[in-house]
């Protein structure tokens, strides 16, 4: 039954992925810009640099002279074979370029996830157990601040404080955790705090609300009545049940983190997919944009699937149909 559910869910993903691919393909073509000029590195305003003869030759080589549906079918048939095409600027396979950048995004996402959870769970629990006290107001103040704060502003403030004034951490750069874990942590610290805060803020509110709900339940009252120590009641009973609901939030946020934060990666010069996407957009490198957006979309869809599956595993009462 579980396997049937899984197959059914995967089957449902196919139309979503087709729609995403059409959208990505069309949106990229609506953006003004000429791929031939991009490839030559010529600004549209200096179009006169390229002769008609050279232009035609290159357009034909790139396949942009064919009707748009032919281009789409060609593109999709290549994707199915795992070929995302060649970058216009570097003429290297997009697949290779994206997967060169993906590890950096994954490492940062996981670090940020840890930071976010480490902030959100204790803060949410404290806020709920001490409802309407100073601690609760402080926690909710933090959540509001975290949601309202633009990422780039927090990033710049952290750089000013920790890199410029105190000189403790580097402002930019990257090192792979597999090669140099310590340097990775130094470099990942500030971006992970920024992204972690972004994740922790809504999560804190969610956990608080869910905890308040659980604490009013009969089984909690029974636990108190049995004389269980409060740590046991809160962590073993109430928190455990609150976390089931939090899985949805964490899951969606993880998908967002894995898509790479364009802003955080740009501010900290982090060599991830988010920055690659921004570079691709700025330089009108269509295949890169298509590839990166497709990767992000697929990540979302896949994580959503995982969330559903984990949900079922955590709470067997959930119906599969």
């Amino acid at each position, binding site marked *: 039954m579980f396997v049937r559910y899984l197959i059914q869910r995967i089957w449902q993903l196919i139309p979503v992925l087709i729609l995403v691919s059409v959208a990505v393909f069309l949106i990229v073509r609506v953006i003004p810009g000429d791929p031939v000029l991009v490839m030559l590195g010529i600004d549209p305003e200096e179009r006169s640099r390229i002769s008609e003869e050279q232009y035609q030759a290159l357009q034909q080589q790139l396949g942009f002279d064919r009707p748009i549906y032919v281009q789409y079918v060609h593109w999709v048939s290549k994707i199915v074979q795992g070929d995302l095409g060649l970058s216009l600027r570097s003429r290297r396979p997009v697949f290779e370029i994206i997967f060169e950048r993906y590890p950096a995004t994954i490492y940062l996402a996981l670090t940020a996830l840890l930071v976010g959870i480490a902030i959100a769970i204790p803060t949410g629990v404290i806020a709920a157990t001490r409802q309407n006290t100073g601690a609760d107001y402080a926690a909710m103040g933090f959540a509001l601040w975290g949601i309202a704060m633009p990422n780039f502003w927090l990033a710049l403030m952290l750089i000013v404080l920790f890199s410029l004034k105190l000189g403790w951490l580097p402002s930019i750069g990257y090192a792979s955790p597999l090669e140099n874990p310590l340097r990775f942590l130094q470099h990942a610290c500030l971006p992970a705090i920024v992204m972690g805060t972004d994740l922790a803020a809504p999560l804190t509110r969610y956990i608080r609300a869910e905890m308040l709900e659980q604490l009013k339940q009969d089984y909690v009252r029974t636990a108190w009545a049995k004389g269980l120590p409060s740590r046991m009641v809160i962590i073993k009973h109430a928190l455990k049940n609150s976390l089931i609901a939090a899985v949805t939030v964490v899951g969606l946020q993880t998908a967002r983190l894995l898509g790479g934060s364009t802003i955080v990666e740009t501010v900290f010069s982090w*060599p991830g997919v988010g920055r690659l996407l921004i570079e691709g957009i700025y330089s009108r490198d269509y295949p890169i944009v298509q590839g990166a957006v497709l990767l992000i979309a697929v990540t979302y869809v896949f994580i959503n699937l995982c969330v559903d599956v984990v949900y079922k595993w955590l709470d067997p009462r959930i119906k599969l149909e």
Partner: protein
Amino acid sequence: MRKLLSVGLILALLLAVLPSLHAASAQPKRGGTITMAISKELALMNPLVNTSSTEARIRELMFEPLLARDLKGAIQPRLAESWEVSKDGKLYTFKLRKGVKFHSGKEMTADDLKYAIDYTLNPKNGAYGYEDLNAVDRAEATDKYTLRIHMKRHNPLFLTLLTDIRAFSAIPKESLPEGLRKPTTFPAGTGPFRFVEWQPGQRIVFDRFDEYWGQKAYVDRVIMKEIGDATVRFTALQAGDVDLIERTPYEWVQQIVEGKIKGIGFAKAAQAGARNLEFNVTDPPFDNKKMRQAIAHALDRKEIMQAAYFGLADTADQRFPVGHFWYFADVPMLQFDPNKAKALLKEAGYKGETLELMGNRGEVAEIEGATIQAQLKRVGVKVELKIFERASALELRRAGKFMFKLAGGSDYPDPLPAYVEYVCEPDPRKRRLNETGYCDKEYDALIKKAEGEVDPAKRKAIFKQVVAKLMDDSPIVSIGFTPRFFTFRDHVKGFTTNASGDFQPWGAGLNHAWVDK
């Protein structure tokens, strides 16, 4: 007394030695690394294909053109030691420098240069220099050190074009794949730095090339890191994560100039760009010359540049700066004179209509536009600012749908490409650069004459007429030059740039920089 004498003697000795010690520390030192933050990442490892201006600037560390343009704009020998041009301008013979080594250790010969030219001329390779070399018929290596270039027609700009690696640069024969497939590493160059590694999104590393034929670099290594955001770039410089950055925001440079930020120096590229006001001369109200001249007289250039560039930019009244070989001091400019502007407006029959001034969003056009708006208000002209996204603005300009606009310009090595822009093209869609729609037979005849002239003195006389004509007709009014700033930490010494802000210009740049730490 003797004691006093000896103390005096010691003091005198110390005083004599101290300045020399100081001078010694000002002597260039070998060794060290410069980490530089750049605004854009490298895209590909083919030196003959361009992708951005930053890309060409990075490649100039490794690759060299045939000739050099010095800091004053004069053409100098480089890989070619000397050259001869036939009388009809159709045959160029270059004598190459002997003993020039590629980074691979191989000696550069005429065959290598012929290969680079042939590669560029093949339209399938998408080489950037294809258009620059369009007058070339074929290249020929007559012996190891002699390169002949046969031309289809005379091109007065040809030598100037050969001073830029974007036309072509020296690479070993057969070192690039044909077509759009791109190499997976750089071919060997002849420049002062050799390529070591490129980790996309992280760093590009160059080492000093010890067998370089010219001024060898002082530093052992240059590391470039891409930091796209200008503020982050400057913060990284202040935090000490990098030693040198390009394109520093003006507000930070101003703070350095005012002494509010210590420990950081700067190098200025004074004419990295230009700012102009351009009129649509095909439609009212600016089809009237007096109307255009009136606006020109109402502009206080100093105030505009002060407002938009923190007082760091120079004003302009011609396409070339004051003191430049191609600046004509005896051509009078349309000076700031509000009374004259008012009189001309009256003569032109201006009745208080609102004029629309167009600019691109995100550039400084908002500030420049607002300043011009205020200045024109003082002479009784109502202006509405129309700021568009770049692509939309381009579309409107192509369709000839604007009254007047703020426009950028680049720096030119020669007056011909700068002034050929205003040659007549009645169809707006076909206009390449002359978006003003300016169309004047006398002007076109002057440009035609300049194109065919080889003699420098006669060329200068023709261009003086060109400039005077353009000044009088005023389809375009030069406002100022936009500077670009490199900033660096105090231990970086000797780094200077040229007017357009190259990393490795001839006679300056990274191979002249050294680290004093």
